[in-house]
């Protein structure tokens, strides 16, 4: 401190020079690849680009066509159903599993491994496994039928109305194990004394969880939320492996629309318009949340 004051007011720019120099490559990557790529995509979404990008502007045509396309509307609806339900269920199931695990049970390691195991599989493998399980001719339906209930019907992947729930089941099977592990880590981080204090006060266990433990686990919940949410927006491979969007277009999702129109239909403009809408959706959710989460702290 004394040394610095004797040399006059140091420039803010040159403080921690070494670490700033070290940061330059990362900053360049962030600016050029992420920000540059995003801006490039948004700009080209206003053009008539086909297989190759081309700067011939058509205004909002691509967006008008996008929102008139039944497939896009179905994709958005599917994402909303899948997103909301998978958020709720993976948090609830994950937390309940973690809380049960936390009761000092025997073979905890074994159970933890079993529950986390699906997460080690890629979405493609998960999708294929559940495609077979839910296939009416080999899977659950045929097993139950062979047990005697010959009219039993369970074929979510071949029914347009409920196909998205078939995908949801596979998504939850794959993802809840991770949520459980994060929650378990959070629970283990809670001081033992808090439990002792609540027991002394005679607070029932479920009330301790809801009113004391969960609020204390806020950072864990936020981390989990971000992980689940990013997984939801980019859900693509699971759908491709399980149904490839079918039956018909009943299980399409936005990311698949982007891919199909960019590469199969050779219409980059349309694909970019769709991906820009995805970005916008994420921004609408993230920005207010980030403002509440980080903006508040600065003031405080």
């Amino acid at each position, binding site marked *: 401190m004394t040394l610095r004051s004797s040399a006059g007011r140091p420039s803010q720019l040159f403080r921690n020079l070494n670490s700033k120099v070290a940061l330059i490559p990362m900053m360049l990557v962030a600016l050029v690849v992420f920000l540059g790529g995003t801006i490039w995509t948004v700009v080209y979404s206003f053009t008539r680009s*086909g*297989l*190759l990008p081309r700067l011939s502007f058509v205004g909002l045509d691509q967006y008008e*066509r996008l929102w008139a*396309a*039944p*497939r896009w509307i179905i994709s958005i609806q599917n994402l909303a159903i899948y997103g909301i339900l998978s958020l709720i269920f993976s948090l609830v199931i994950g937390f309940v599993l973690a809380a049960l695990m936390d009761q000092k049970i025997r073979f905890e390691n074994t159970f933890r491994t079993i529950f986390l195991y699906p997460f080690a599989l890629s979405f493609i493998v998960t999708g294929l496994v559940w495609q077979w399980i839910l*296939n*009416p*001719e080999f899977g659950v339906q045929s097993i139950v039928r062979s047990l005697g209930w010959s009219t039993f019907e369970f074929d979510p992947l*071949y029914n*347009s109305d409920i196909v998205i729930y078939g995908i949801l089941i596979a998504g939850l099977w794959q993802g809840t194990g991770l949520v459980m592990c994060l929650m378990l880590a959070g629970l283990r981080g809670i001081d033992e004394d808090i439990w002792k204090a609540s027991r002394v006060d005679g607070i029932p266990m479920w009330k301790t969880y809801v009113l004391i433990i969960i609020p204390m686990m806020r950072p864990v919940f936020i981390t989990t939320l971000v992980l689940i949410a990013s997984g939801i927006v980019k859900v693509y491979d699971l759908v491709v492996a399980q149904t*490839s*969007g*079918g*039956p*018909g*277009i*009943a299980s399409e999702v936005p990311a698949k629309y982007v*891919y*199909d*129109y*960019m*590469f*199969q*239909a*050779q*219409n980059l403009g*349309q694909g970019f318009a769709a991906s820009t809408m995805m970005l916008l959706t994420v921004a609408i959710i993230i920005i207010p949340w980030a403002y509440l989460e980080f903006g508040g702290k600065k003031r405080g």
Partner: protein
Amino acid sequence: MNLRALKAILVAGVMLPAAQAAATDLEVTHWWTSGGEAAAVKELAKGFDATGNKWVDGAIAGSGGTARPIMISRITGGDPMGATQFNHGRQAQELVEAGLMRDLTAVAEKGKWKDIIKPASLLESCTIKGKIYCAPVNIHSWQWLWLSNEAFKKAGVEVPKNWNEFVAAGPALQKAGIQPLALGGQPWQATGAFDTLIISLGGKDLYMKVFKDKDAKAAAGPEMAAIFKAANEARKLAKGTNVQDWNQATNMVVTGKAGGQIMGDWAQGEFQLAGKKAGTDYTCLPGLGLNQYLTAGGDAFYFPVLKDKSKSEAQDKLAETIVDPKVQVAFNLKKGSLPVRGDVDLSAANDCMKKGLEVLAKGNILSSTDQLLSPDTQKQKEDLFSQFFANESITPEAAQKRFADIIASAN
């Protein structure tokens, strides 16, 4: 001593590649992966290897819809293969216009492609601004109804002679526990089946008006309404197929689990591979037995521009091989498609191929939708028809309205 030995090894290491340089490896990408298709590709590879070069197989599984994006991104991304399959027409048009594909005009002139390739429309769709950019391999037509004789025998009805009889036989098949119409879940299958209904039930003029002239009024008119009604019947017959890939659906017909399938002539390869005989085990009806018109689309090979000169020479060799009469016969017999030249001996062809050749000889040939419509329009059609065939809550009238909108904005 040791040093000398090392030297000898090093020299040998340099000499060996030099000796092999005459045989150039050429990677060829394609999406021919079903049994009959793979057998046909082997014939092509054999023909190319005989020229002293080496065919490096780059098969991409999962039909054209999966394979084409991979091929295109490799070419635009600066990692081009030696040669690649496309359906000729408009799929590779922008790649050619961007100067990424090799001009084959010299090879074509040397081989007199203009005189030998029949129908001429095949070469026309390879030609952009007067230059030839692809080598057609085969002619594929969509307008076939494949029937399992065994299934109809089991149901106690005669094997139908046209689409109308087939529809009439539907209930009898259902009663016998047989799936009347097999239709896989891939979007292009529903679209192809519908386009086939337009030609076979609606006729040539309607097809050309809608897809060539992009006449939205015709697309919304009463003639098309009749087609949508027929498609509605077809989707009732196809309900419950529950398979994805076309060859799985074809297999249902091969094994007699399904009565019939509307599928292109590539289905023939699957029947042959299963050892079935045309006429006795299965029946094929070109033009669904009604309007005997076939669309002559097909596959062609495109050759990306490469820097390596020896590879460019190998590309020329491959282009010559593809059009070679012997290779044409061997390849197309295995694949079940028709050869691109009229002057080859196809006495080994079976009943179905002969029927196709007859139609071809009559000149009842139309351009395929791949040639008439942009991939963008094709994709929109696929979205519509895959939804229409899978979801019975969409009425034919609503579907027709959406179809007319797509045609109005088509390019």
